[in-house]
């Protein structure tokens, strides 16, 4: 069934006891995982709403990734640590803990063949690990500021990493070398009055035909400390590295925490900020959004279910919005 972004609506809410940070559906689509400010990782069974708490990190968790077979969950925390978990266990205990970085690990990604795990964070280093045993494979250095986002290219040979400076580096995984750099400087600002760097490449996605790269974040960051900024997604041509489109919208103050290319071709972005939480939708050839949906609270993370219809977004108000990209069912028919 094709998704209909214009019909997006809230189907259900899930609740936790602390503000939420990020979320991912597991590859089977049976569970939703979320992370929270109480350091918990929460697993909801979507069928019955039951939840299981994973406790093991000594700080907040932002990175969530799954092994190729879907049986293992890997999480990354702001406690320097990667943890491997049995994804579906009734009483989950860490399989493995690896002290991986100095400081926050903001992002992780698993390679298409499932063999490698990449991690990046505030120490400005990208590291590659063997997913099976957690052993270090490579360290990639060169980022000037914190690493915010990671994505393996579908060819499995290349890795992309985005940073606070608005640079996206393409790495040759086997050679552990930088191949080239995309300039996403529109996503970075340095405020000389407040003396802070702000923005960064918060999310990366590649179109199915591998011809365009999308990088989400913020622009118009006129007051970084005061949350005055607007969401934007840059669309690069893969070969030429030129910016083809700047996907923006009007009336929304926020940052794109994640952008996903829907299998139907449109782009969906999750924005959180001073004007609330939004799901925003763009067509490939258009600058301005064709639809936006205001959610119950500011948003901090989002994921698309394998069915292409369900979208989860997590909020500061401790709730998950489970939305559907289709026409709302008529309650009378029920």
């Amino acid at each position, binding site marked *: 069934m094709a998704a209909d972004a214009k019909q997006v609506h809230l189907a259900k809410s899930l609740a936790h006891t602390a503000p939420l940070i990020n979320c991912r559906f597991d590859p089977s689509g049976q569970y939703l995982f979320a992370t929270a400010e109480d350091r918990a990782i929460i697993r909801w069974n979507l069928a019955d709403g039951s939840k299981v708490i994973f406790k093991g990190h*000594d*700080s907040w968790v932002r990175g969530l990734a799954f092994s190729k077979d879907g049986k293992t969950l890997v999480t990354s925390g702001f406690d320097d640590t990667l943890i491997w978990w049995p994804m579906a266990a009734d009483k989950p205990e860490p399989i493995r803990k690896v002290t991986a970085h100095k400081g926050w690990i903001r992002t992780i990604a698993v390679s298409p063949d499932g063999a490698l795990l990449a991690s990046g964070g505030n120490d400005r280093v990208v590291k590659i690990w063997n997913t099976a045993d957690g052993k270090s494979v490579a360290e990639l250095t060169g980022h000037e500021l914190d690493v915010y986002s990671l994505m393996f290219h579908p060819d499995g040979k290349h890795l992309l990493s985005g940073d606070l400076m608005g640079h996206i580096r393409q790495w040759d995984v086997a050679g552990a070398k930088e191949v080239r750099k995309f300039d996403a400087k529109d996503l970075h600002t340095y405020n000389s009055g407040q003396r802070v760097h702000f923005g960064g490449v918060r999310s990366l996605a590649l179109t199915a035909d591998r011809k365009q790269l999308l990088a989400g974040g913020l622009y118009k960051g006129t007051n970084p*400390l005061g*949350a005055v900024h607007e969401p934007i997604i840059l669309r690069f041509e893969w070969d030429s590295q030129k910016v083809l489109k700047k996907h923006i919208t009007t009336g929304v103050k926020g940052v794109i925490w994640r952008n996903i290319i829907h299998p139907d071709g449109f782009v969906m972005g999750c924005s959180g900020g001073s004007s609330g939480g939004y799901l925003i939708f763009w067509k490939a050839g258009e600058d301005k959004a064709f639809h936006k949906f205001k959610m119950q609270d500011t948003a901090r993370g989002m994921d698309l279910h394998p069915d292409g219809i369900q979208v989860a977004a997590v909020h500061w108000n401790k709730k998950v919005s489970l939305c559907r990209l289709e026409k709302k069912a008529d309650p009378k028919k029920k």
Partner: protein
Amino acid sequence: MKCDYACGSEEHLIARRQFIGGVATGAGAVLGGLGAFATPEAVAKMTKDQKRVIVVRMAGGLSQLESWDPKPGTDTGGPFRSIPTSVPGIRISELLPHTAKVMHHLALARGINTRNGDHGKGTYMMLTGRHRAPGQTHPELGAVVARGLDNESLTLPGHIKVTSGGSGGRNNDAAYLGPKYASISLSGGKPPAYTERPKDVTEAAAKNQNQFRKQANDRFAQRRRTAETDAYVQSFEQAQELMRQRDVFDLSKESDKDRERYGKTQFGEHCLLARRLVEKGITYVQVTHSNYDTHNENFSFHFEQLGEFDAPFATLVADLAARGLLEHTLIVVLSEFGRTPRINKYYGRDHWGNAWSVCMGGAGVARGAVHGATNKNGTAVSDGQVDAGHLFHTYLRALGLNPRRNFKIGGQKIPLADPAFEPIKELLA
């Protein structure tokens, strides 16, 4: 106005007598040039033993939870962990690993409740030790200590502010103590503005102009000297000294090794400049580090800002200790207020004056002490509550000044510090 504005503090009078000896003070000292009567030996001894102050002002409001009073694992604690310090039992945020190593030189006030969340009022309160009242203006700490520790052998201004930007020049922060004790800003750490002789004025011409000015001043002062005329004379003399001693502010005179140790950030350079200035005898140096007003993404911005603050500050503390200057130099790290324990929608923390912390150390401070505490998640002071006035008294006491004594201003007695408060004895050596 009668020329009657000497500090009434006993300590100051003793110090002056001790080091200046029988040197004539008063009009002659001012009119003849500030350093004219002091022997080099007296200057050297005075410079060594003189009390000094370095204040680091964390502009915007440093989060106590990301610095001096972490609460990891609580609903307000945020993502950062706490780390042990060189003082057993004291833990601070993991964002300050270098500072943790010099904690034995420092002390913490963790029970501050200023009941204020306004930037302007908070800054006034923390720098004057008084709550702002309509129609009243009080001198800032820098002016009070520059005046209280003033000695005629020091020819440079006693009150310097090192700012990251701005126009530089003289500020209006000395209130009734007069312009002599108002701060001079070093914008971006550069030497004071307008202290280079204009290129089209020859050295000989400048000398002649100043000689003529001094003659006219002396003649005028013989019959009609007032506090105002002294202030004018003082300004000119100080400007002359600033021009003559411009090198004092020149960081390039420091070794490459030291510049490397302090780092190439602006704050690193300003910390090294602060060391240089107190070594040259400047009484009060205030360095501003900006900006901590993190309503948005508090944790990322504190990671960035404290990442810049930590190593240079710890290097400064360690250097002062190694050079024997720390026992004479009071160090204070303060803000206008702290930040809310509650984490807002944007991962930010907002203004909060009800339960926060200040760090101090050096001269007169009990090393490794902690006074006051907050509850489990930092939402209220649970022990040892103090206000800005208590801190102000403590700073003065640490410097050997009696906060209960008075300045004599135009025949009127004005207390050095708000008499409603007391020093925090637990933080004094």
